[in-house]
């Protein structure tokens, strides 16, 4: 039998070592049909297998094949490929045999997989390429220097990089594998970046894609370890409820474990665990201690409070940004708007539900987990097991979507506790219903925008207030005085628009629906308000929205270039057929720039997008095709959210528990999407979230030309609940 670790290496198209193994595994013999237990390869084991680890990021095996270890996780953004391209550029690696794996965290600052600019081994905020670009190039350039030095010393010649993983003395070539052992012990010399452009800037095929077309990619859900049990989870049907009492056994279950705010049901298979959990939940044998104040987990009550706070003059205000005297400037402006926008709670709805496999033993703990925060998983396991960090191994699997949800530790902590309690490896998998009802939702926001301008359109005053529940306050920070509340005003603070005075405020709306980071976080709601308001001002001034933005962004060359590109791409000034309207929006965020335009018509009174155009400047474009893919996906994610998504709670009870009440765009809903990358040559910025925020305001801005101005998202609340709102009689003020 081939090694299990080798099977799970991620090969590129063409090399396909895993496919060779798959043939063995799926051969003609009936018994071979049963795939053996699968273990994600990990460098601690791989190191013992004959390959040499040059540093934390690079391993070269005896056949001169390189494995790159990355500190950011692969959840579909193409991170593995992009980071490997950076390493490959410096070392001129053989791309046809390159493999990429997730790095395994060690404790503290010794963890080489901490994103250099975040100083954490996590993936979020579109920081993978932004944070790693310089640090990883340096590390790879140092590795090249060591290989050249070791090779030159060994051969007595002056070697240079020949390409495809070889050095040369001009006459003959030597594989890196000849020198990697010597190189590993050499000191680092100052790195010099390669001038070549063979990998960076090229649309290399993604290293993970072949395995995602044949069923071999291992997501967290697919992990199987020997002697494993399976677990399901039950949370209180009323969000925020805790376990008052739970039985210690249930029909069909090996164990029932009270986890405090949930109950774990452990059984011999996933189906047995889920069935036993369902029966137990409906039996009434678990009793729950409900939250004492159910208005704190009630959408209508929370949102009413938010609207009230948006107008309040006595609310405690956290001022993120203040320039000049915006109140008097507003009063003195000849053109004034005072507008309030609202956005709902959203679920992440990753295609892969939350899951984690844990094997806790007396002296060790190993996790296999689809996580955006491997380092935090290490901390979670240390806290629960009491083991030292070097006794704990956190293996990051592929993530079937993350979008910010899989940075959380709730499901990890449950799996570790369950394995520790039952004394066997446990794979915990949430049901889709548990996943929807117990998310860490995007905060619902009320956003009040006051915009004052003169007749020329110059903005005299911008006063913005976001009212939402602070994610950080829910996690223990103090409201109003912690810098992390900047997340709640991202997309409104530090706008590149010329504004003579400005103030950006945050007001914490204290409530208990558990909140978290949803793809593009603050920009996912504040950009809706800001970019809608800019359009509303353009209309008041009688200006074209594109021209008006160019006027306000004249001092930012990258912004203007993106707007110019969008203008050309979307044929902004060309006539549209009657009944079709254009709308646009702009974003500077995630260390990048984006501008999007939509072409919209109303079909039976409802929004139908025919085309979406997007121009992006994300600095050096490491992999242009991956960037286009992320923008396409971000646009569709933003479109589904703008039109259909919200999760509401009535006294803690969620209205959504599966996709039937959370409509996602399907093939028939998809517009033609055109993406243009504007090359500024700046340092690389983020792309994973960049495509999302502009879509909602662009749709609202187009819609306002054909019908009403919509200031409340989603466009079609209650869709799927059978209460379809009439568009024209909607929520316009």
């Amino acid at each position, binding site marked *: 039998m081939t090694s299990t670790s080798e099977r799970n290496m991620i090969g590129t198209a063409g090399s396909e070592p895993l496919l060779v193994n798959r043939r063995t595994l799926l051969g003609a013999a009936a018994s071979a049909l*049963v795939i053996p237990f699968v273990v994600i390869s990990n460098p601690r084991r791989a190191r013992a297998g004959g390959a040499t680890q040059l540093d934390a990021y690079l391993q070269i095996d005896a056949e001169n094949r390189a494995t790159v270890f990355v500190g950011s996780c692969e959840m579909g953004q193409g991170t593995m490929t992009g980071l490997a391209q950076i390493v490959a550029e410096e070392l001129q690696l053989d791309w046809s045999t390159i493999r990429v794996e997730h790095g395994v965290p060690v404790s503290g600052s010794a963890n080489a997989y901490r994103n250099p600019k975040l100083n954490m081994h996590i993936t979020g905020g579109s920081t993978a390429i932004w944070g790693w670009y310089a640090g990883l190039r340096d590390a790879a350039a140092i590795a090249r220097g060591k290989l050249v030095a070791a090779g030159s010393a060994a051969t007595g010649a002056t070697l240079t990089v020949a390409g495809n993983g070889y050095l040369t003395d001009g006459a003959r070539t030597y594989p890196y594998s000849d020198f990697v052992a010597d190189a590993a012990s050499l000191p680092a010399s100052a790195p010099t970046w390669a001038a070549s452009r063979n990998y960076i800037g090229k649309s290399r095929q993604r290293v993970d894609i072949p395995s995602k077309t044949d069923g071999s990619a291992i997501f967290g859900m697919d992990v199987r370890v020997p002697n494993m049990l399976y677990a399901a989870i039950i949370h209180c049907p009323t969000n925020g409820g805790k376990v008052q009492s739970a039985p210690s056994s249930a029909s069909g279950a090996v164990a029932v474990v009270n986890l405090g705010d949930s109950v774990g049901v452990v059984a011999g298979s996933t*189906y047995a665990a889920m069935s036993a959990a369902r029966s137990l939940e409906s039996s009434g044998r678990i009793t729950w201690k409900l939250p004492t104040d159910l208005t704190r987990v009630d959408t209508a009550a929370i949102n009413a409070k938010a609207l009230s706070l948006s107008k309040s003059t006595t609310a405690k205000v956290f001022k993120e940004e203040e320039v000049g005297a915006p109140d008097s400037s507003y009063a003195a402006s000849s053109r004034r708007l005072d507008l309030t926008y609202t956005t709902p709670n959203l679920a992440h709805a990753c*295609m892969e539900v939350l899951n984690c496999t844990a094997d806790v033993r007396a002296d060790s703990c190993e996790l296999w987990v689809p996580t955006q925060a491997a380092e935090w998983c290490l901390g979670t396991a240390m806290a629960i097991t009491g083991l030292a960090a070097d006794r704990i191994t956190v293996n990051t699997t592929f993530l*079937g979507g993350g979008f910010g949800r899989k940075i959380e530790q709730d499901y990890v902590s449950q799996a570790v506790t369950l394995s520790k309690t039952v004394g066997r490896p446990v794979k915990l998998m949430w*049901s889709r219903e548990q996943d929807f009802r117990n998310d860490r939702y995007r905060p619902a926001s009320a956003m009040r925008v006051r915009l004052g301008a003169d007749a020329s359109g110059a903005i005299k005053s911008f006063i913005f207030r976001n009212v939402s529940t602070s994610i950080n306050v829910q996690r223990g920070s103090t409201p109003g005085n912690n810098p992390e509340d900047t997340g709640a005003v991202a997309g409104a603070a530090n706008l590149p628009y010329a504004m003579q005075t400005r103030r950006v405020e945050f007001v914490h709306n204290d409530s208990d629906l558990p909140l978290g980071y949803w793809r593009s976080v603050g920009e996912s709601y504040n950009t809706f308000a800001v970019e809608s308001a800019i359009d509303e001002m353009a209309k008041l001034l009688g200006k074209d929205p594109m021209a008006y933005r160019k006027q306000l962004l004249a001092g930012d060359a990258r912004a203007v270039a993106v707007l110019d590109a969008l203008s050309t791409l979307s044929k902004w000034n060309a006539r549209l057929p009657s009944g079709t309207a254009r709308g646009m929006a702009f974003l500077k965020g995630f260390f990048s720039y984006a501008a999007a335009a939509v072409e919209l018509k109303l079909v039976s009174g409802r929004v139908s997008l025919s085309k979406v155009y997007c121009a992006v400047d994300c600095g050096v474009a490491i992999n242009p095709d991956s960037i286009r893919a992320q923008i396409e996906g*971000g646009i569709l994610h933003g479109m589904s959210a703008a039109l259909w998504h919200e999760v509401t709670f009535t006294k803690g009870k969620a209205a959504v528990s599966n996709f*039937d009440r959370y409509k996602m765009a399907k093939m028939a809903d998809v517009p033609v999407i055109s993406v243009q990358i504007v090359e500024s040559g700046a340092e690389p910025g983020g792309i994973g979230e960049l495509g999302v925020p502009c879509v909602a305001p662009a749709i609202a801005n187009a819609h306002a030309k054909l019908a009403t101005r919509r200031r409340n998202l989603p466009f079609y609340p209650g869709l799927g609940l059978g209460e379809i709102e009439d568009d024209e009689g909607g929520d316009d003020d």
Partner: protein
Amino acid sequence: MAKVNLNVNGSPVSVTVDSLDTPLLWALRDSLGLTGTKYGCGRELCGACAVLINGQKQLSCDVDVGEVAGSEIWTIEGLAADLASPNPKFPSYAEVRKAWIDNQVPQCGFCQSGMIIAAVSLLEGGKSGSAAAAAMDHLCVCGTYPRINKALRSIA
């Protein structure tokens, strides 16, 4: 516990399940280790669990394992088992896989086994690539639809 004789990916195999109404999805994933077939919603809403049963696409979260004893079941692993000599029952898989890679379709990839099963089923049913693209009705949260569309339209 119950024992069921199945025919999976061209081979007879016996699986032990808790009961005959266990969804085929879990027999494939847990009993047989064929984890390419995914759990997404459990209610036939997303398509991640699609398999081919007697040549037809079915959502395995809603098929009792007891009902498919004797049926011919193919999963993504079976279609992909031997790329050198494509499965004569599903010759379109090789085209679909190539189109998926050429067009760099998957992002997170979780829904793609189901997407590919759906595409193969439509093509084997006689649909053209563009007709198959229009008929794809599975869910992809990453938003790979434009590339699925392009990939299928590249197939005659």
